């Protein structure tokens, strides 16, 4: 079981998935935001301590590489209590379950893309991020960074919308805003997404944990068309010339399921990470 599920999941609910535990969506979680307390309310105040801590740690890599690695290691060991927000990749079907559970659900502009690519998402057709929970009702009080407001959606609209970004090739991930409070489902890609970047480029694991699945190719069905190779944001899939089929490196696979949803021959399936002894501790 992943450590977030161990800490914040309920074994009785949805196989113990922490992001499907209603407790982690509750209003009470959102309100814990006094200084020094666990929830830093990053979503309501992007200039909060959490963001500064990350930047401070990342800045050390320019001056002192060993110190940087020590800080990252320390932060990883602290898990959810450390300076980094918890994030986890989830496949589309679990993202659909989350929007069924949470209220309200709203489309909004992606903070990462504003920062890294100066991308302006100004209306419901351009929004790529999904905000969840009571924080969305306060959108008018957010600072300027979240441009264009929000677009409230029903659960069914949100599902169609998540499917749209899945089709385009975005990875879905759960983002927490302080402790285990589920604040949103991001639709991410590399290199715009700061969390994926933190994980892949700098080894900050807590920011973007792997999902509860890994992708596996059915070599009888795969015809080597290469669609999955294009869709993988984590560099885990290669086209293997020798076999004329796709090759998935399950050690690198984050289990986002983009290759599965994109495969025209249904040759890729998501299997339970914990069913594989070599991967069950790899989060």
């Amino acid at each position, binding site marked *: 079981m992943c450590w977030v599920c161990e800490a914040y999941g309920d074994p009785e609910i949805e196989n113990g998935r922490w992001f499907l535990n209603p407790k982690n969506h509750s209003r009470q979680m959102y309100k814990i935001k006094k200084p020094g307390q666990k929830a830093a309310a990053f979503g309501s105040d992007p*200039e909060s301590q959490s963001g500064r801590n990350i930047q401070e740690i*990342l800045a050390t*890599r*320019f*001056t*002192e*590489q*060993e110190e940087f690695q020590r800080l990252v290691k320390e932060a990883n060991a602290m898990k959810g209590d450390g300076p980094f927000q918890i994030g986890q990749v989830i496949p589309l079907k679990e993202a659909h379950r989350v929007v069924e559970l949470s209220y309200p659900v709203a489309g909004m502009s992606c903070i990462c893309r*504003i*920062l*890294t*690519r*100066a991308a302006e998402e100004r209306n419901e057709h351009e929004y790529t991020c999904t905000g969840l929970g009571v924080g969305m009702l306060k959108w*008018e*009080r*957010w*600072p*300027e*960074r979240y*441009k264009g407001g929000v677009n409230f959606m029903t659960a069914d609209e949100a599902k169609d919308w998540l499917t749209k970004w899945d089709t385009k090739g975005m990875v879905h991930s759960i983002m927490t805003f302080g402790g285990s409070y589920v604040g949103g489902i991001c639709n991410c890609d590399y*290199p*715009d997404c700061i969390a994926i*970047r933190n994980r892949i*480029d700098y080894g900050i694991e807590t920011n973007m944990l792997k999902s509860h699945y890994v992708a596996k190719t059915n070599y009888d069905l795969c015809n080597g068309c290469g669609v999955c190779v294009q869709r993988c944001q984590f560099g885990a899939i290669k086209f293997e010339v020798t076999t004329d089929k796709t090759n998935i490196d399950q050690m690198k696979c984050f289990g986002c399921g983009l290759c599965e949803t994109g495969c025209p021959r249904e040759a890729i399936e998501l299997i339970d990470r914990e069913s594989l002894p070599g991967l069950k501790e790899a989060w």
Partner: protein
Amino acid sequence: MTAPKYPTLEIDATKCTTPFDCKLCIQACPQAVFFTHAVKVERGRETDPKDPGAYILVPTYRDKCTGCMDCVEVCPVDALKITFP
């Protein structure tokens, strides 16, 4: 000790005043090295991207810079300078 050798990206803020509006270097960079964010933040009001000095450009991921100089070429105000150690 182990001070790593990374390139220095000097951004002349007196020349580069509206990076969020211009965004040429940010979108041209193959390594996505830059960050741009507002420094004039007012609660409940959007910062005008055309307001000089409201946004700044930061080379957050300069450790990923390869020195292709695409950003330098594309910059209309010649505000960028990259030097490798």
